[in-house]
C-alpha cells in the first residue's frame, strides 16, 4: 500500500469526520492507501508542516494557502470538500451590536495564525480600521475559546457555526441574546478546509495517482458522514487520543459540518475561487494577496477521482 500522511488544520473533531470515516471504514485501504492522520492545533501551521516534508497533503483555509503561495511556498488546491464557509462573528446584543454599522468602537475577538485574513478583508470592505485608530474597531487576538464574550471583554468573537457558537450556547447564553453575522451572508466568505499539496509533487504521476485515490476515498468518507452523522461523530470520538471531546458536542458539530460540505462533490468550483480571490484582493491599502494567483488550484485530481 502507498503511504499518505494528512495534516489536519485543527485538533481531532467532527470538522474532519470525512477523513476519519474513510480511515475507519476502510475506504483508504480499499484504494490501496495506508493513511496517517496527524491532528493539528493552535501552534501547527499546515503549510509549514508540508514544507518540512511532514505531510503529503494538508487541510488549509484558502486565504492562508494563497498567502503562503505568495511567500513562495507553492501550494495547490486539489480538492474542496467544504462548499460553504462556517465562519461567523457572534455578538452580544446587550453589548449594543445589531448590524455591522455598530462595529465601530467595539472590541472584536479574532483568530490570528493565518486565520485573520477573511476578517481583515471584511473590515476593509466595511471601511473600518483595525489598527486601533479612531473610528475603527479594537481587535483582540482571541485565544482558543469563547471566554472574551462570556466575560464581557469583547462585544463579538469569531466562531464557527459548528463549534465555538455552541460553546457560547452551552455556557448559558441563549440564541436570542446573540447577534450572528455569517461571512457567507455578508458576502465575504472564503473557502475553508481545502486539500492542498506541493505543486512540484504534482508533476510526479505516481503521486498524482495516489492523490486521486486519496481524494476519492476521502469524498466517499465525507458523503458517508453526511448521511450517518451520529455514527461519524462516534468514529471521530474513537480517534480522539486526548479524550477531551464529548459525544454531545461532536454529534452536534457533525450535523452542522454536514451543512457546509453538502453542496460539494469534492471539486473546487472556480467561481468560489474567484470570489475568494476578489474578496482577498479588495482589502484596500492592505490586501492579503497582491496579485491574482496562477495555478493555485487544479481539477486534475478531482477529474480523475470523481468520474
Amino acid at each position, binding site marked *: 500500500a502507498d503511504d499518505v500522511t494528512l495534516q489536519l488544520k485543527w485538533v481531532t473533531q467532527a470538522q474532519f469526520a470525512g477523513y476519519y470515516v474513510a480511515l475507519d471504514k476502510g475506504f483508504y485501504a480499499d484504494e490501496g492507501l495506508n493513511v496517517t492522520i496527524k*491532528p493539528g*492545533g493552535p*501552534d*501547527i501551521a499546515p503549510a*509549514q508542516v508540508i514544507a*518540512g516534508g511532514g505531510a503529503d497533503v494538508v487541510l488549509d483555509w484558502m486565504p492562508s494557502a494563497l498567502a503562503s503561495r505568495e511567500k513562495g511556498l507553492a501550494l495547490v488546491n486539489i480538492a474542496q470538500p467544504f462548499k460553504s464557509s462556517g465562519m461567523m462573528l457572534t455578538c452580544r446584543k446587550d453589548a449594543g451590536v445589531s448590524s455591522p454599522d455598530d462595529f465601530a468602537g467595539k472590541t472584536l475577538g479574532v483568530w490570528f495564525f493565518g486565520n485573520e485574513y477573511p476578517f481583515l478583508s471584511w473590515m476593509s470592505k466595511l471601511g473600518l480600521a483595525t489598527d486601533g485608530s479612531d473610528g475603527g474597531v479594537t481587535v483582540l487576538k482571541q485565544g482558543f475559546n469563547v471566554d472574551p464574550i462570556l*466575560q464581557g471583554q469583547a462585544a463579538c468573537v469569531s466562531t464557527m457555526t459548528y463549534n465555538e457558537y455552541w460553546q457560547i450556547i452551552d455556557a*448559558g447564553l441563549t440564541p436570542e441574546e446573540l447577534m450572528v453575522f455569517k461571512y457567507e451572508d455578508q458576502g465575504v466568505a472564503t473557502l475553508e478546509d481545502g486539500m492542498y499539496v506541493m505543486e512540484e509533487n504534482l508533476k510526479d504521476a505516481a503521486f498524482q495517482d495516489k492523490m486521486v485515490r486519496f481524494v476519492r476515498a476521502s469524498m466517499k468518507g465525507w458523503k458517508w458522514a453526511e448521511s450517518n452523522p451520529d455514527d461519524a461523530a462516534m468514529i471521530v470520538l474513537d480517534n480522539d487520543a*486526548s479524550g*477531551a471531546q464529548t459525544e454531545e458536542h461532536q454529534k452536534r458539530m457533525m450535523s452542522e459540518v454536514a451543512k457546509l460540505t453538502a453542496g460539494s462533490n469534492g471539486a473546487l468550483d472556480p467561481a468560489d475561487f474567484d470570489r475568494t480571490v476578489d474578496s482577498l484582493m479588495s482589502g484596500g491599502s492592505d490586501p492579503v494577496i497582491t496579485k491574482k494567483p496562477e495555478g493555485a488550484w487544479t481539477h486534475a485530481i478531482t477529474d480523475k477521482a470523481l468520474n
Partner: protein
Amino acid sequence: MRGLWFRIGPIITVVIAIFVLWYAGSVALNSAWAHDKAKRAGVELSTSELIADTMNQKKPKLPPPHQVGAEIWKTTGDMVLRGKAFSKRSLIYHSWITLSSTLLGFVLGTALGIALAVGIVYNRTMDMSIMPWVIASQTIPILAIAPMIIVVLNAIGISGLLPKAVISMYLSFFPVVVGMVKGLRSPDHMQLDQMKTWNASGNQEFWKLRLPSSMPYLFTSLKVAMAASLVGAIVGELPTGAVAGLGARLLGGSYYGQTIQIWSALLTAAALAAALVGIIGVIQKHVLKRMGMAQ
C-alpha cells in the same frame, strides 16, 4: 508524635488556609456569571442561592476544590476501579505519556548539561565562548520555537517521543550546566593543590575530587531540571497535535473552555512534578548520606 505535628501541622494549616481562600475565590470570581445569568433570566438571587450557584457552574472562572477533586477522581481512581486505568479519558494514561517524554528529556538534558559543564570547566575556550550563549538560549521563548523544532525534526524523519524530549532537554540542560559548573569548580585551591602534590592525572582529579564535591550542586540542579523537563514535555505536546498527555488535556480544556479539566490537568502535572522532585530528593539524601556529606 509531637515531632510529627511539628512538621505536618504547619503544612496542614496552610493547606486548610488555601482551601478556604480557594472557596472564597470561587465565590468571588464565579458570582459575576451567576449575576449575569440571573439578570438575563430576570430573577433576583439570594446570597445562599448565589453561593450554591457559584459552587456548581459548568464553566466556572475558578472551579471550587470539590469540582476539581471530583473531576480528578473521575479520571483517575474511578477509572482504575473500572479497570480502565489506561483509557484515553484517564489522567493516568495522559500522565504516563507526559512522564515518558519528561524522563527521556531529563536524561538527555542532564547528559548534555554535564557534558557542557565538563567542557566549560576543563576547556578554556569553551569556558569563555559558551556561557553567554547558554544564557541567551534560555531567553528564547521555547513555545515559539517548539513547533519549528518539531517540524524540522520531522523533516529529517524523527518523530514520536524524541522531538518532545528534545524540547524537555532544551529546558532542562540549563540548570544542570549552571549548577555543575559551580559544583565542579567548588573544590578549593587547597584540595586541588593536594591532588597536584600526588601528581594525580586529570582523570583522577575529576573522579576523585571534582565529581564528588559537585554532588550537592548536582542534586539541586537535577531537581530544577526535572521540573523544567516536565514543563518542556507539556510544551512539546502542544505542537505535536496535542494528541495525548497532560499538555493535550490542558489545551483540550482550553479550546472548549473546560476550566475544571484545565485545573485537574494542572494539579496532576504539579503533583507529578512534586513526586519526581521528591524522588530525586530521596536519592539525594541517600547518596549524600553514604558519601558522608549529610548528617
